[in-house]
């Protein structure tokens, strides 16, 4: 306690000195954001018939699934009593924003994502159940769920139902992440969080991060598979990344300008924080390197004629910076929102553990885990056709 108190400047309510929500709670909106964003990118192809992004359609769906499976883990790890978390399903408190997460999550996982992936892959699964050998055959057999009918008529039905699910999926993806934003935005006690813009900002930042993640994964997997990167595809994704980034940035700036202009009693505390404790993560990482640089570079691809090689480098750099930027944004919201006292008279410091339950190590593990899951999913359900590799 003594060491923590040394990290306090000014006066904090005594129970606020130690942060309640750690890096794990930073990961929670980060990961769910990737899910929502990747799904929305996938739905572009399906619903809005953007043919150019077709090579990323299945990859985006599998990415969304891999991250969605991991999304509740940081929460579980953070709970004081993880063994009681199921109570949220049994006795949800109707007035609590958080209580609905379990249901929104299940809806999205079971009804939207798993259904859509299953319908889209059914033909491949049935083929796998017939041609694969060993344990893989059994997995494919299990995944058929007993339905081996892949007649053109059956596939047409699959396609229609799949389209319908994507239609439901888009508002569901907005719901999933907008809702995560609401969990923060509805806390009136915390002026850093309390904002009706929060859910909207969360949705757009989710789209930005999801699009960037799929862009990076597509380029990386193409490199690993030694397949030519479809420039029309990455150009289109890059363009969408630019558009959503501009909307996202505008919303965030609107929020900031509004706060500065209104200058209510919390502004001094928040302003001080942005200039000191959050200067690096907010001004340098999130806004400077993570937002302005990618927007400038992506903008450049729109106005200048650049070679394929240069554009690829730009997309890789922008994608990576975007991932950092959105992580920094989640960090600044979750951690930043706890660094100042609700008395507005003082500030504390976040001391992150390393190999502790809520330390850096489990956080890194939780970021790597979805990539491992994605690797397994890609092996089991390849998102590309075999003849594509020869191209």
């Amino acid at each position, binding site marked *: *306690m003594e060491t923590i108190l040394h990290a306090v400047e*000014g*006066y*904090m*309510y*005594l*129970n*606020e000195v130690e942060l*309640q*929500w750690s890096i794990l709670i930073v990961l929670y909106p980060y990961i769910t954001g990737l899910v929502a964003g990747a799904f929305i990118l996938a739905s572009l192809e399906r619903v809005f018939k953007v043919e150019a992004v077709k090579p990323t359609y299945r990859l985006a769906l599998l990415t969304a699934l891999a991250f969605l499976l991991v999304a509740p883990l940081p*929460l579980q790890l*953070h*709970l*004081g*009593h*993880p063994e*009681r*978390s199921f*109570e*949220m399903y049994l*006795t*949800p*408190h109707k*007035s*609590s*924003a*958080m*209580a609905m*997460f379990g249901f929104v999550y299940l809806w999205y996982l079971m009804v939207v994502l798993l259904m859509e992936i299953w319908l889209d892959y059914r033909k491949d699964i049935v083929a796998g159940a017939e041609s694969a050998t060993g344990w893989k055959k059994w997995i494919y057999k299990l995944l058929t769920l007993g339905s081996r009918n892949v007649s053109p008529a059956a596939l047409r039905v699959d396609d229609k139902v799949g389209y319908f699910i994507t239609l439901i999926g888009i508002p569901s993806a907005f719901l999933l992440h907008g809702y995560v934003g609401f*969990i923060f935005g509805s*806390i*009136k*006690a*915390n002026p850093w969080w309390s904002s009706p813009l929060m859910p909207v900002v969360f949705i757009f930042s989710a789209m930005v991060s999801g699009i960037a993640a799929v862009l990076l994964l597509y380029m990386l997997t193409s490199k690993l598979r030694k397949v030519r990167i479809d420039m029309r595809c990455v150009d289109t994704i890059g363009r969408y990344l630019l558009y959503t980034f501009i909307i996202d940035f505008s919303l965030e700036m609107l929020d900031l300008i509004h706060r500065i202009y209104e200058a209510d009693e919390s502004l*001094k505390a928040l302003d001080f924080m942005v200039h000191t404790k959050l200067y690096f993560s907010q001004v340098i990482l999130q806004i400077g390197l993570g937002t302005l640089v990618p927007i400038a570079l992506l903008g450049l691809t729109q106005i200048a004629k650049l070679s394929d090689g240069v554009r690829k480098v730009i997309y890789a750099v922008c994608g990576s910076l975007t991932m950092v930027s959105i992580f920094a944004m989640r960090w600044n919201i979750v951690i930043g929102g*706890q660094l100042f*006292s*609700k*008395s*507005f*008279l003082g500030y504390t410091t976040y001391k992150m553990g390393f190999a502790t339950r809520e330390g850096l190590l489990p956080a890194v593990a939780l970021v790597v885990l979805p990539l491992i899951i994605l690797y397994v999913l890609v092996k089991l359900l390849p998102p590309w056709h075999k003849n594509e590799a020869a191209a």
Partner: protein
Amino acid sequence: MQYLPQATHSEDRGRTITMNLTRRELLSKTTKWILLTGAAATAWDYVLAGKADASPNYDMTKHWWAMVIDVDKCIGCGNCVRACEAENDVPEGFFRTWVERYHIEDWQSDHPDVDSSNGGHDGFAEKYKSGKNFFVPKLCNHCADSPCVQVCPVGATFRTPDGVVLVDEKYCLGCRYCIQACPYGCRFLNPKKNTADKCTLCYHRITQGLTTACCEACPTQARVLADLKNPKDPVHEFLRTHNVQVLKPQMATGAKVFYKNLDGSVR
């Protein structure tokens, strides 16, 4: 007073019975006393009732608890903090109640100097010679429209019918959403139980007819437990005749800790 759900009158039962005996009751009582003598009559009452009554006969619907704090009377001795710690086994480094010392120079009323070393547990060493100086005891405000109760995902924290906000430690997930939602910094995660913890207004005491540990320990009566549903409680006159304020009224939480002469700079 707008937080009173129903203006029911609690009655001093013994007095009501002796004052308002009906003829029928009088006859019945007299007959009983004639037929049975003292001890036997008492025993017969218990037989009729089936079991012994709990003592005192606490009825949740007849109370609406609050606290009144007279800022001018607080001397910052820390008795309340120590009493609370002893009564409620409060873990070290966390506080169910604490005392803040405010120091304000006339030109900086919007940014006072506040300190609360160890929550005021050990009192305050003299520090200021000038300016306006005063102590503000803090505790859970037992809000009628409590944001912490609103956000709990499983309803483990709740408001009792008599107006006390409690946590069911056998049910709490330890998600800490309630801690984030409290505008007053009154909640913490109990490191031993891994559940949310806060002032219970000594619920185990007040339902037994006692006052809270902090109020009992206060040497100047700076903090006094109040029952807003009891028309005989002096709180009513106190609220009527003094300048009374709650913390952060803009939060509209229906806070029920009323401060007399609270300085506008207190957050």
